């Protein structure tokens, strides 16, 4: 809480006191109602704003507070001042109880649990006649008495004001405290919050309970203020109003619920002369506000304010690694998903001060292995140890607390938090205590260390910037800095160079090397071979879930098994029988195409031509931009610039479904069959955009071309083997009689024998005159059937020509395994 906040509080108090002094009894009552609604809203904001959960049952907690005060003061003569806190506590306990089923469910399921809770409280109050007075409610609840004076409407208004200011102060402190930040972290990325040691169950339960306490206290004051409560005082509709208060005012803002509450309560009063047309107007207004001010009113206003001054990190000496980091020992781990052996008996040992890399083609099981180490999956067999500590089967937040930090393939920053908060919350090691609800997370020591770490990683931007708005490379750096802030022994990195430019990749490489030099245990999964070869001390090669090689970079580069796993082996049987024909007309022409994800450019100035009846292959390592090229051509990813022409028609900027209907049909990476639909239904769907004259004949033709599919024509596609699914995906593309068929990584994750079968089919298609653009990691295979090929590396074509010419250029080995340095 800063001076600014204190001044704001004083200002609110001054305005409120002035207004209350000027108001008649009606207005004072309405203002008090607004104040109480604000208190509920501030509490609900903890749930909605900080944890991102929705409750449509908060009126239930409000009612519990109100009934506690009503029953205790009227029937038992207990003082209001004792009954009120009891009401808050009771609501809080109920909140914790309700959160138990609520924690297991999400989205609409959660909404339903809270709705049901609200109804049960309303109905329960009506039926427990002895306690609650049933439908007639409790009459004659006396206003509180203090120092012998009974509160009138004005005194109650001041009481409400005090309660509201206290709620605001608590929220302000709580929101800046480790609790508040941890809840936001959980909201932005549950996975990442767990990986810095937070227990989501505990945090959510606490948020629910605290939020309920606010509603309970407000309800208690309401009972004393109105002097009368009945089940009809707490209808379901009120819960919706509470939620609206937060959304209209602005979730995750301090003043949002206050402004929302005063609007929602005062606005209808201002229009009271409309009598029965009031609800109509309120509904219309709501719709307008929701449309025009998505971040709520406070969000809209802050959007207009000038941004705060940028602040860059101050570099300082910082201890990155513990004095003696422990090694990570993985022993024969194995896991099976639905019959697929994703990882089988993989063992390795990652030493402190060394970079240990895991490489392998797509689908080799690298990320799965990493997930087992991080505790996200529990292995079927084998174990994971950090030094002497056995971590096998521990939940991920416990693994993290033991000393393992990680980064993700797609960065998992806490996107709506500032860069420095991302780091400081990691320093909590997943532990937040009771007192810390009101202590700020940002201490001088933490701030200094966080800035030092940011400077260490080379992040030079604004430390107060919202993490989600950072350029890609900065996200990577901040994510690594966050992992360091956690003070781990081991850092697991999943493709930190993905989507980075060559220069930025080098920066990251240097940083990782420095981290190892500081004594950390670094485990790296990466496709960028120059990076892997450049910084690794030890490399592990996985293929189809099995470790096929291990050793130094030099040894791995020479290893024939590794080359085979990456490039595959070409079979001569599928070469085109006749010598390459004279190329026909150009069917697909791509000129100067570029594409990017966020700020990182993935494709630069691609020129490509495919002629009628030609089979053209695009080769390149993972991350070279092959799939992006396919996605850009098919309209799934909108290119930044350039032209795409199909038979003379411009396609750039068209939507994917229109492009497909024009005849440029993609068989996507990973098959993407519709798993719950049958084989025949999948094939029929392929014809959706370009229906043939006789659909069943066309389907039959496909089943004839792929006899294995005929055998399983009525089975759900999800039950087919990988190879069969690939054939189905191709059949689904072919039935649209595409002008050009795009094939993205058809051999991915298939056994060698199946790959050969698949390529025989592709060769047959080629011989039947189909026009095909093929992208595959299996370079030798692809070259063996292609008429022409392009080699893609770092987003540009580095070679092109006939298969023999491409082979002779030796660009392939460099593209796949990195140039020998």
């Amino acid at each position: 809480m800063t001076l600014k906040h204190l001044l704001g509080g004083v200002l609110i108090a001054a305005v409120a006191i002035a207004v209350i002094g000027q108001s008649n009894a009606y207005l004072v009552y309405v203002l008090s109602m607004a104040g109480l609604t604000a208190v509920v809203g501030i509490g609900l904001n903890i749930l909605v704003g900080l944890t991102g959960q929705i409750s449509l049952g908060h009126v239930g907690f409000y009612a519990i507070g109100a009934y506690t005060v009503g029953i205790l003061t009227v029937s038992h003569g207990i003082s209001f001042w004792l009954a009120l806190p009891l009401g808050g506590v009771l609501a809080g306990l109920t909140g914790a109880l309700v959160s138990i089923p609520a924690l297991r469910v999400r989205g609409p399921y959660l909404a339903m649990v809270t709705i049901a809770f609200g109804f049960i409280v309303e109905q329960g109050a009506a039926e427990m006649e002895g306690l609650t007075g049933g439908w007639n409610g409790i009459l004659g609840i006396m206003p509180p008495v203090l120092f012998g004076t009974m509160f009138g409407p004005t005194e109650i208004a001041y009481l409400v004001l005090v309660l509201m200011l206290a709620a605001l102060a608590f929220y302000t402190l709580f929101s800046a405290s480790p609790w508040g930040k941890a809840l936001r972290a959980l909201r932005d990325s549950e996975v990442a919050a767990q990986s810095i040691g937070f227990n989501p169950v505990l945090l959510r339960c606490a948020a629910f309970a605290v939020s309920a306490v606010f509603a309970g206290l407000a309800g208690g004051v309401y009972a004393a203020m109105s002097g009368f409560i009945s089940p009809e005082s707490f209808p379901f509709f009120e819960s919706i109003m509470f939620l609206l208060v937060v959304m209209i005012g602005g979730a995750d803002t301090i003043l949002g619920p206050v402004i929302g509450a005063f609007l929602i309560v005062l606005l209808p009063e201002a229009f009271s002369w409309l009598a029965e047309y009031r609800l109509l107007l309120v509904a219309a207004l709501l719709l307008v506000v929701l449309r025009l001010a998505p971040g709520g009113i406070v969000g809209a206003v802050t959007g207009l304010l000038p941004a705060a001054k940028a602040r860059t990190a101050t570099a300082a000496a910082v201890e990155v690694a513990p004095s003696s980091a422990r090694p990570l020992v993985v022993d024969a781990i194995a896991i099976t998903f639905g019959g697929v052996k994703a990882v089988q008996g993989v063992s390795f040992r990652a030493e402190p001060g060394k970079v240990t890399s895991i490489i392998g083609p797509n689908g080799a099981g690298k990320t799965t292995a990493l997930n087992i180490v991080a505790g996200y999956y529990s292995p079927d067999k084998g174990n994971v140890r950090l030094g002497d500590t056995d971590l096998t089967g521990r939940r991920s937040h416990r693994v993290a607390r033991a000393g393992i930090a990680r980064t993700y393939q797609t960065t998992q920053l806490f996107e709506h938090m500032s860069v420095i908060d991302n780091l400081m919350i990691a320093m909590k090691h997943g532990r937040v205590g009771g007192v810390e609800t009101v202590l700020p997370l940002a201490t001088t020591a933490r701030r200094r260390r966080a800035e030092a770490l940011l400077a260490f990683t080379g992040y030079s931007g604004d430390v107060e910037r919202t993490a989600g708005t950072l350029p890609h490379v900065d996200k990577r750096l901040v994510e690594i800095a966050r992992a360091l802030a956690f003070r781990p022994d081991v850092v697991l990195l999943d493709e930190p160079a993905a989507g980075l430019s060559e220069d930025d990749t080098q920066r990251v490489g240097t940083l990782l090397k420095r981290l190892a030099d500081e004594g950390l245990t670094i485990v790296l999964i990466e496709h960028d071979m120059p990076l892997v070869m450049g910084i690794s001390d030890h490399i592990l090669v996985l293929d189809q879930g099995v470790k096929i090689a291990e050793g130094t970079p030099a040894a791995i580069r020479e290893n024939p098994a590794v080359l085979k796993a990456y490039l595959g082996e070409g079979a001569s049987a599928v070469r085109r029988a006749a010598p390459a024909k004279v190329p026909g007309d150009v069917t697909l022409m791509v000129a100067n195409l570029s594409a990017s994800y966020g700020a990182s450019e993935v494709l630069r100035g691609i020129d490509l031509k495919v002629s009628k009846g030609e089979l053209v292959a695009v080769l390149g390592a993972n991350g070279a931009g092959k799939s992006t090229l396919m996605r850009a051509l098919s309209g799934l990813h909108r290119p930044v610039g350039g032209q795409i022409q199909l038979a003379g028609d411009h396609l750039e900027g068209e939507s994917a479904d229109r492009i497909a209907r024009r005849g440029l049909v993609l068989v996507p990476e990973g098959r993407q069959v519709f798993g719950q639909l049958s084989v025949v239904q999948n094939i029929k769907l392929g014809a959706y955009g370009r229906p043939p004259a006789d659909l069943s004949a066309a389907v039959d033709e496909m089943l004839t071309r792929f006899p294995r599919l005929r055998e399983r024509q009525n089975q759900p596609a999800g039950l087919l083997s990988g190879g069969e699914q690939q054939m189905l995906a191709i059949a689904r593309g072919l039935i649209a009689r595409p002008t050009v068929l795009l094939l993205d990584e058809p051999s991915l994750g298939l056994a060698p024998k199946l790959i050969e079968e698949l390529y025989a089919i592709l060769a047959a298609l080629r011989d039947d005159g189909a026009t095909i653009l093929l992208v595959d990691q299996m370079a030798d295979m692809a070259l063996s059937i292609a008429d022409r090929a392009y080699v893609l590396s770092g987003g540009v074509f580095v070679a092109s020509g006939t298969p023999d010419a491409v082979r002779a250029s030796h660009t392939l080995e460099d593209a796949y395994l990195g140039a020998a340095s």
Partner: protein
Amino acid sequence: MLILSALVTGLGLGAMYGLLALGFYVTYVVSNTVNFAQGSTMMLGAVVTFSVWVTFGLPVPLAILAGLFASTLWGLVVERVAVRPFVRRGSEAWLMATVALGLLIDNIVLFTFGRDPRGMPPTPLTSSTFQLFGLNVQPQQVLIPVVGLTLAVLLTLFFRRTRHGLAMMAVVQNQAAARLMGINVSMVVSGAFALSGFFAGVAGILIAPLFTVSSTMGTMFGIKAFAVAILGGITNPWGVMCAGLLYGIAEALITALFGSTYTQISTFGLVIVALALRPDGLFGTREVKKV
């Protein structure tokens, strides 16, 4: 006897909850959104049918068509006005926006149709009764589950057998791949909301002869139907229909056996317990998370 009559009551109402809940299902699976004010759509179907039939004196089939048309159209309007703009910017405010839109139509109907609840004129389906195991039953009571189950079967056939139905299923399972098949995903989402409105309209028109027609008639049905959809595991059409029947029967049985005092508390309590034990609904399946 008591139990038998509760079963007949429960089946009729349950099938209607199921129909409304199917409306939640179709939009949720293709777009992860629902019209939270589904009860208002149902009301619109009944009110328009009543007005065309009684107020304007046109033939019944025409009135039913008009009611279905209105509710279907309203489904489209809801998607355009209260869902699409919010989904576009990744906001969850569609939930509140559909509630607001429901409130709006409720009040518009209040001022145009009138404050007075109205009763559908008797038809042979409501003015006669027949004996079933010694129980007096109106044909309309049987008609609701028959139409409900028929529509559920037709929906299944539509999904399995027709071109557009398959396209919808494709969108449900994999949006990107569906686009690659030439399927216009936003059209499919619109279609789902239209279908959802249609189901609500059918439910409204079916229940109207047994109930009263007014601007507020759908509110409670809408909430119960949402409970049913969630209970059934909103991603499974037969689960949703079964949950509807179960909910209706549970309501009637609890009333018949233990008296009406605790019906609402028990049914909503059961919903919470069921979700605590099976977080994805009775018939739902867990979506697999990936890192």
